[in-house]
């Protein structure tokens, strides 16, 4: 069980690094998907080892997958709109919400 949880933690750290350092909006979204998957591995691991007679953890993971899909759809649509308005998707261009 330790190895599964450690795998998830390291994968989450990799995704966190991507979110913090990417200059590209799509790169940030892809790193977010990595973090979702790390959380899902955790959920399924706890389900398998601590309550294998129920499937609640897997249900949670399925809902996380669905919500992540919805998030990716809306996020990529936003990326397209930003690209159309600014001709680029670098995060340094998008600063009109900063005060």
């Amino acid at each position, binding site marked *: 069980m330790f190895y599964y949880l450690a795998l998830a933690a390291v994968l989450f750290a990799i995704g966190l690094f991507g979110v913090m350092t990417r200059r*590209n909006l*799509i790169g940030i979204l892809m790193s977010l998907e*990595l973090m979702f998957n790390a959380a899902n591995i955790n959920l399924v691991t706890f389900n*398998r080892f601590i309550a*294998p*007679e129920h*499937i609640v953890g897997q249900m949670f993971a399925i809902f996380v997958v669905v919500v992540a*899909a919805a998030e990716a759809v809306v996020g990529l649509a936003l990326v397209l709109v930003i690209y159309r308005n600014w001709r680029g998707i670098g995060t340094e261009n998008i600063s009109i919400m900063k005060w």
Partner: protein
Amino acid sequence: MNAPDVGIVFWILSAAILISGVMVVSLRNIFHCALALVFCLFCVAGIYVLLNAEFLAAAQVLIYVGAVAILIIFAVMLTTDMTSKKIVMTNENALVSFFTCILFAFVSVSMIRLTKVWNISDKEVVANNVETIGKSLMTEFMLPFEVVSVLLLAALIGAIVLARRERS
């Protein structure tokens, strides 16, 4: 305890996941990153199979590897100039973020290692994974199921409204 052993398959899958994960966050060409992400998600589906979550593995392959990856690759092709490979892909926080994430991973892994009591159960795994999930989706998880379908509809409409070109 009938918990799955950490066998050779787990090590191969973990190595593939971690290497392709590092590729996702570090490669210069965003298209290569998308391909590495597809591979990484596919290997995570393999981890689900090891953990006796067959339906979730199938859903992962269908939704992530099938749908989300295609969507990301489409967005990459629509927005990125493929010929320009010389752009710097990381911002000025890279070094600080690198050490922060190393620290985060180290602290989490040592916390997991130091935890003594896990209450590991030795009960049998649910026999019919898909059947049980289908039944509980229609009984126990009816409300979240309906809410998530409304959410998907809202995301669909929102994406269409956002991405549609304005007629001028």
